[in-house]
């Protein structure tokens, strides 16, 4: 049986178990049935509430992710160019990597106030270290032979970086991007969930939190499903496609 079919069968089985258990429990406040959850998901989508929350979250995520990437690029360039930069990157990464980004949120709220600024700040923190560290170690791992080939054909400094170092380090860079994305996504949902954002509008985390306050538990489940779906789409569709078109095609996957 092909793996896609096996997994679909497993999903169906899980849904059936969920449905049976919820019916047996018969307590929609604690554990709504699968069917109710799916209904809540569709009505949430139809009413535009979930799409609005999801768009809000995604916009914030993309802003934070890009800002994190830009900072990582600067830091990596600094680390690749000078010894002190390399030490700086190593030191900061070993300090900040074990610190969950969400732990910085209270401080960020003090510094940047209750709003998107604080969330962007923690997102940068979530993305920065994983991407910078992986890119930097990827650069260092580019084989000496490839470097010599690059020099042999008279590439300029910038050409050498863009045409030898970046593609040569791409497997590692992609790993960094994936880890950075995963951190950012989890951090963002957590940040929205705990603190919400400036009153009124909010993202998926805020949606889940609010529905719980109103005891609309099927909607809470629907919100969680949406978070899962976005995670799956990005990790398995977007990153998988990039992987297939680059490192797999080049025979470079690690």
């Amino acid at each position, binding site marked *: 049986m092909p793996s896609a079919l096996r997994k679909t069968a497993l999903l169906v089985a899980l849904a059936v178990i969920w449905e049976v258990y919820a019916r047996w429990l018969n307590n929609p406040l604690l554990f709504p049935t699968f069917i109710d959850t799916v209904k809540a998901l569709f009505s949430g989508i139809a009413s535009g509430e979930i799409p609005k929350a999801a768009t809000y979250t995604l916009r914030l995520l993309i802003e934070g992710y890009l800002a994190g990437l830009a900072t990582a690029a600067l830091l990596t360039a600094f680390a690749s160019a000078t010894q002190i930069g390399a030490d700086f990157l190593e030191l900061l990464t070993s300090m900040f990597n074990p610190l969950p980004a969400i732990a910085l949120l209270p401080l960020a709220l003090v510094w940047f106030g209750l709003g998107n600024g604080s969330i962007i700040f923690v997102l940068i923190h979530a993305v920065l270290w994983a991407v910078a560290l992986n890119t930097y170690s990827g650069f260092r791992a580019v*084989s000496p032979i490839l470097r010599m*080939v690059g020099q042999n*054909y008279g590439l300029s400094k910038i050409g050498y970086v863009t045409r030898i170092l970046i*593609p*040569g380090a791409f497997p590692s860079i992609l790993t960094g991007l994936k880890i950075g994305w995963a951190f950012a996504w989890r951090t963002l949902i957590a940040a929205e969930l705990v603190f919400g954002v400036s009153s009124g509008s909010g993202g998926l985390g805020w949606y889940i939190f609010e529905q719980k306050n109103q005891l609309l538990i099927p909607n809470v489940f629907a919100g969680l499903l949406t978070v899962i779906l976005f995670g799956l789409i990005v990790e398995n569709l977007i990153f998988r496609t990039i992987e297939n078109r680059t490192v797999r095609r080049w025979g*470079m996957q690690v």
Partner: protein
Amino acid sequence: MLQVRGVTLQYRSHKQLVTATRRVTFSVSESDRFVVLGPSGCGKSTLLKAVGGYIRPTEGDILLDGVPVKAPAPDRVFVFQEFDQLLPWKTVKDNIVFALTASGKMQRPQAEDRAMQYIQKVKLTEFASSYPHTLSGGMKQRAAIARALAMDPRILLMDEPFAALDALTRSQMQEELLHLCQDARLTVLFVTHSISEALRIGTRILVLSAHPGQVKAELTPDACDETRLQELLFHA
């Protein structure tokens, strides 16, 4: 055209100063196939890298057409032993196009024509749009040779290019290289530790001793045979 005069090469490894070659002198003339033969550890690869401009001599100088060699440049194209000298993210054809365009030798449309021409010369036409990791070792080396030849360098620097190939492929590749060199009247500096390869490829052979590499003799293949070279390398 290439003059190596009293070149001493040293590098640091584990805080120790290693002398790779000591006062090596030789000169290569137009359309020579000049082979540097020596046991492993005689600094012959280091010497080739110095000619390539990757390492500066601590003593002596290296002149190409009378001009001192200072840095790597596309007039001295390298073919390495390692298979990963092809950029894995480019197809065989794009590897050659990359070399031609990166060095500013020509624009892309012209470069593509030239790439196909040289791919045909090394009999890789069917594999022009394959990625390197799908090729066998021999095919990868062929692609690397095509890339180097397409550059039309002043001198081709080959660092044991066939050492990682099986015996059959190796002898086939030696034959093909000879044909290609004779066609193009190419000047080659070829480094090897194999006596038979030296005799087969070279028009002149420089024998180096080990630790550090010093010139033992310079010969032509007609003036010597395998036993004579063996004696030079391991006895004397």
